[in-house]
């Protein structure tokens, strides 16, 4: 976008919840990109974002991964996580991280949440799960497909979790109503939602807004 002559972009990265609180507290951003529809919805209800400004930007998938150093496991379905050999399984903390919420949904959907719970290690966010995988501290982990991609040498994807087992993982983007540069912001949003952005999205493991 910047190379194309669009204006310079300043990135403020933090968890979707933190960013939402920043926006609620005052004019802090022109564009908001959320990994969780709930936060976007909260901002719409709070009047910070117009409902018609929200656009679907990308989608993601949930996968089960294991450290590369471990012997490869054959997982046909999510329920196979109950195998004895998996003593520590890292997932996001469902209370605080979307990646954990989706994981809990899926595990409950196949009915193994209660049985698996004692073996679960709850991490705060995806980078933490990635760190555990990289250091071989856990036997398996559930995280986004996009988080496993950068780990190519240190982790191996075992299974792509059936998307019907959890709420759709949708990333939404919108121009913040209080933005002082609404035109430039709209340009950016349009660009990111256009077909031109798709190849880059896909190369990082995201799915387009379909």
């Amino acid at each position, binding site marked *: 976008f910047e190379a194309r002559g669009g204006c310079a972009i300043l990135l403020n990265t933090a968890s979707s919840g933190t960013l939402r609180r920043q926006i609620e507290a005052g004019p802090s951003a022109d564009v908001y990109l959320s990994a969780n529809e709930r936060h976007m919805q909260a901002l719409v209800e709070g009047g910070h974002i117009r409902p018609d400004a929200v656009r679907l930007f990308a989608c993601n998938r949930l996968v089960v991964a294991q450290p590369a150093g471990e012997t490869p496991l054959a997982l046909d379905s999510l329920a196979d996580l109950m195998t004895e050999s998996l003593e520590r399984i890292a997932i996001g903390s469902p209370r605080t991280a979307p990646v954990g919420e989706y994981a809990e949904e899926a595990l409950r959907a196949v009915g193994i949440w209660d049985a698996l719970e004692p073996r679960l290690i709850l991490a*705060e966010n995806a980078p933490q799960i990635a760190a555990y995988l990289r*250091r*071989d*501290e856990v036997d398996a982990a559930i995280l986004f497909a996009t988080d496993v991609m950068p780990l190519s040498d240190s982790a191996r994807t075992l299974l792509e979790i059936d998307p019907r087992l959890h709420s759709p993982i949708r990333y939404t983007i919108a121009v913040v109503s209080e933005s002082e540069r609404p035109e430039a912001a709209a340009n950016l949003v349009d660009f990111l939602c256009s077909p031109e952005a798709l190849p880059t999205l896909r190369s990082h493991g995201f799915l387009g807004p379909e």
Partner: protein
Amino acid sequence: MFAHEHFTFPLLLSLQVSALATMLAGLVGLALGYLLARGRFVGREVLDVLVTLPLVLPPVVTGYLLLMLLGRHGWLGGPLAHLGIEILFTWKAAVIASAAAALPFMVKTSRAAIEQVDPELEATAHLLGFSRWGTLWHVTLPLARQGIFAGLVLCFARAMGEFGATLMLAGNTPGRTNTVALEIYAATEAGESRRAAVLVVFLVVLSFAILYTANRLGPRSDH
């Protein structure tokens, strides 16, 4: 809101973890403080800086370094795993994380306190026949007790508030490793601001009570 796992347990866990961490950091910190105060060796000041590092580094970094050390493939973690001892993701990891965070405080205050002790007095003790340990126990430490005690209090306070490294090393598992600090964070993130507020109040009141009592009962110059 007051479910055991999310309320009583964190409070008790934090107290236990902080107490143990204070003992651990207190002992190691005192030893290092003495070494730095009285020792004469190459790299003495380098050691001082190394020990102070946990104060400078972001807690998550300290946590990651500890993870490297105590993980399955770590220097300490590997051998311990062979012995069947698991540290990560248990309360023991929380103790170590808190102890690591508190250590710099203990070392700095102990060193300063011991350096204040007149070496002449220690020399006199030697002359009178006290052994190295005897001098330490009967002369040096009693004279440095105020600083040492201050260090212990700081350790405890720091341990109660420890968050970043604990998160990395022990995880935030309800009913197992969720200290008050971790629980407050989780409650805030999940939007349970009321429960978070109650936890904060309890944490402050508890810590206030303990620290105030310690300050009053501890060694003071007007006793």
